[in-house]
């Protein structure tokens, strides 16, 4: 499976509009270094054409093509208004130069 969505993440996402984005977020190091970290957000991407769209039991997941088939898992954490998505199983990747 391209990405697994936990039951609680699916329920939570359905209440938020049923859309998620899994993308790479560049993080800069303290002396010029950097890596791309996989992050997940409960929203549609700004440029959907750059993502692979997967429909998983009522949830539309837009995932960065480089993250497809990595065996990732989408889950939700936090409490009350502080709940948010996270993606498990991804290693940092080399930033696009």
């Amino acid at each position, binding site marked *: 499976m391209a990405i697994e969505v936990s039951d609680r993440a699916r329920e939570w996402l359905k209440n938020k509009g049923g859309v998620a984005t899994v*993308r790479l*977020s*560049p*993080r*800069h*190091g*303290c*002396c*010029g*270094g*950097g*890596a791309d*970290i*996989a*992050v997940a*957000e409960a929203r549609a*991407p*700004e*440029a959907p054409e750059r993502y692979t769209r997967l429909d998983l039991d009522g949830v539309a997941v837009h995932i960065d093509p*480089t*993250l497809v*088939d*990595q*065996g*990732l*898992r989408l889950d939700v*954490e*936090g409490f009350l208004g*502080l709940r*948010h998505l*996270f*993606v*498990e*199983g*991804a*290693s*940092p*990747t*080399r*930033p696009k*130069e």
Partner: protein
Amino acid sequence: MADDSLSQTPTTTEGMGLFERFLSVWVALAIIAGVLLGQFAPAVPETLSRFEYAQVSIPVAILIWAMIFPMMAQIDFSAVLGVRRQPKGLIITTSVNWLIKPFTMFAIAWFFLMVLFQPLIPEELASQYLAGAILLGAAPCTAMVFVWSYLTRGDAAYTLVQVALNDLIMLFAFAPIVVFLLGVSNIQVPWDTVALSVVLYIVIPLAAGYLTRRSLIARHGIEWYDNVFMKKVGPVTPIGLIITLVLLFAFQGDVIIANPLHIVLIAIPLIIQTFLIFFLAYGWAKAWKVPHNVAAPGAMIGASNFFELAVAAAIALFGLQSGAALATVVGVLVEVPLMLALVRIANRTRHHFPEAETQPAAEARD
């Protein structure tokens, strides 16, 4: 099995840009440029040193903010909510970073600089170097660790949480640890000076970074913030670092010319401390059967330092011409070669650790 794992791992420096790969070279060049500037154009640093307000050097403050702000502007504090994930890894790294590392740094630096090297370093200068080492030990790495995590195929989610947690703890723990250890070393620093340096070089950049992040994401969206804004702001850090070092060594020229051996003497305890902390965290992780993708970045986080903060605090507390500032720069000088050696060790010992339950596919890395 070990070979399979290694074949999926990036080569030791793959993914590192030109700047950070050769950081030691740039630092060495900045030292040379600074010393030359101080010797042949002393009017430049003398003029810059006149721009002061409330005993804070304005040019230095601007350079330090330039170094630190980009890192603070990308901290995602919502990641702290994930502390329940990988609890063993978080316990190990947080304990090592805040309960062990500052004190082993103090003990090792004190033994080498104040006892073993006593015949080689004047006592007053040795205590300044010790102060620099203490500042390094109290400032754990918060950003370069993403690179080390990449090079050891670390768990991205764990690394994010640990970095956010460290930044949060640093806000409260850095000043008390520094004041305590400087006090133990009989190095007198007024509390208000320490508090001012924490406000100037942690609280203000952190607040500015947080507010910038919140407002720009609200206005332009997270993808624009990550891919456009941070791409422009990120390179400011290394530029600020190098200019700060040139300025610092414009004032340090006489010390370096008179005692070039001191750089080696300062480096020895720093190197020993780095290896000790790495093996402590890594060994603890192995004993607790922590997966390698958490054990490796966890140990790298403990071993490396947030040297921009250490340099900033040393300059703020002791001045540009201080031995403390010199000692923190030696930390920058040895950081990358040391960390790359630890990356090699971590990758070669991967097979001694259990694999993570969720493991990214190998082909995605090629």
